[in-house]
């Protein structure tokens, strides 16, 4: 499919003004910043120590002492969510990094070279696309046993063709433009043109896709940890907390409600951020508002 998009023609300052008057962007930005802040704070301080098991305090309902209640080992759910945020963000961020780091150069290369190279990259994409993150994680776990690294690798691999496709489609829309021809007439090679003209013009597309994949990564990490293919206990993770909550739904629903809400809020924040960026940078979508 061909991708059409307009390159925004604005200064950084204009964009900044627009960003902070865009509701989606602002909400998403605040939520994401908050989650990130919580994750960072968790390195230095949590209300309770999440590694200490206090069986006497087990499955307590939310109270002024334990805002979100405690789990079946008496650990403070709020503190666990804080530490879990760190874990989720790290996994999703590295996975996006892998996807971008490998996918974008591949996609840009395919668009610049065309022909056999393009075909090879696209077929490789098809192959990786046939293995949803969960299937990769299952296979990796089958070989190496469970662990947090599996989740990162599986989600990261799945991100590669996503970014390769976006980068390729974006670059293909840039290459036929006259300013590229002008650069070629100025004697610039394909590599230089890709760096100087193509990549800067698709950064926004990649940024939007990045936030989407970040959000999907958080969902995927939670899913993998939930079925035991991701982060392993005792390291708190949102997915694992939900697994522990499952059998105790009847007596301790807060064990399920709060970690789930943490996921929802984080993913919502990232999606709003992505929508906001797309809104701000795409003149077409703005016209529709």
């Amino acid at each position, binding site marked *: 499919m061909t991708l059409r998009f307009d390159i925004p023609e604005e200064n950084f300052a204009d964009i900044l003004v627009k960003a902070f008057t865009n509701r989606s962007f602002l909400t998403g930005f605040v939520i994401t910043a908050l989650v990130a802040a919580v994750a960072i704070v968790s390195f230095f301080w949590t209300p309770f120590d999440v590694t200490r098991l206090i069986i006497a305090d087990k499955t307590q309902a939310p109270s002024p002492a334990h805002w979100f209640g405690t789990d079946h080992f008496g650990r403070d759910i709020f503190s666990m969510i804080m530490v879990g945020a760190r874990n989720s963000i790290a996994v999703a961020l590295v996975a996006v990094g892998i996807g971008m780091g490998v996918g974008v150069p591949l996609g840009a290369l395919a668009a610049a070279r065309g022909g056999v190279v393009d075909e090879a990259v696209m077929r490789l994409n098809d192959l990786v696309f*046939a293995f*949803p993150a*969960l299937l990769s994680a299952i296979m990796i776990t089958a070989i190496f046993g469970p662990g947090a690294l599996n989740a990162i690798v599986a989600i990261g691999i799945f991100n590669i063709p996503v970014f390769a496709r976006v980068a390729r489609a974006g670059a293909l829309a840039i290459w036929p433009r006259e300013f590229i021809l002008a650069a070629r007439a100025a004697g610039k090679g394909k590599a230089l043109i890709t760096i100087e003209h193509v990549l800067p013009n698709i950064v926004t597309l990649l940024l939007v896709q990045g936030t989407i994949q970040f959000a999907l990564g958080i969902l995927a990490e939670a899913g993998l940890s939930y079925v*035991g293919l991701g982060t392993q206990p005792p390291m708190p993770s949102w997915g694992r907390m939900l697994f522990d909550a499952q059998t105790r*739904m009847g007596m301790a629903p807060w064990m399920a409600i709060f970690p789930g809400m943490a996921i929802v809020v984080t993913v919502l924040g990232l999606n709003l951020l992505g929508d906001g960026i797309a809104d701000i940078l795409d003149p077409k979508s703005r016209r529709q508002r």
Partner: protein
Amino acid sequence: MTAYLLKRLAIALITLVLASMVVFAVLEIIPGDPARLMLGMNASADQVELLRNQMGLNAPLAARYLHWAGGLLSLDFGRSYTYSVPVIDLVRERIVVSLPLALIALALSTIIAIPVGLFSVGRHGRAGDTIAMGAAQLGVAVPNFWFALMLIYLFAVWLRLVPAGGFPGWSAGVWPALKSLVLPAIALALPQAAILARVTRSALIEVLNEDYIRTARAKGLPYRAVLWRHALRNAMIPVLTILGLQFAFLLAGTIIIENVFYLPGLGRLVFQAITQRDLIVVESVVMLLVAAVIAVNLLVDLSYAVVDPRLRSRQ
């Protein structure tokens, strides 16, 4: 037309072959001797060697791959180490749960999403649109297995309307079986529906800005007729793409959701197999799901050609 079809078919086959090589390679890397695993620790080296020969494990790599791939074609996946029955029997038993669940979820998500997308476009920028898209934005952010837990809490634990989990089997009658699939299907479908509704809406809005929509309006067709006759079909292409992707997500989702509802589907099978290190089962199920994803992508590619005449005349 035929050129396009043949190319897509060829690509799907190549992808399938490559994917089978990847899966086979993974089987090869895995530490441990399947023959030893099957016979147990007390077997003698001779017994193991005999079984290895019987299983063809001593043949060259290429020969073993061809043997394995040939087996797949005739639905012979090998024998489970732990159950000691052909893997295909296990799969056959479980797929009657997983496949209906995925299909019901897909149908449900489509039935919900497309009308919501249309509704939203019709009230573009007004309260109805804002509410629908706000809900969709929220829906996209909800992990399906957490949503499943909440549904169980609400309908099974609290209201006691449906069983909290388990599957009576199709032999217990279609209705009880379906009833136990209702909550899992909803849990799977709603987050997917949210994505699909958003895609439907944005695809329609994009199409409605096209010049040919203005041409249709200039003919005197009212807005609604233009939406149905001209916009919808053009907006189908991105929608189909997402539907294809969603099937892959739904398959993966099914595996996870089965664990929430204790459904005896492929997902349960896979996770049991992982804990028991019954690798041949793991690989077979993975291969099967990969083949399903490739097949659905092929189907999506073919449906593009039905929707868009430009593809039919291109190579």
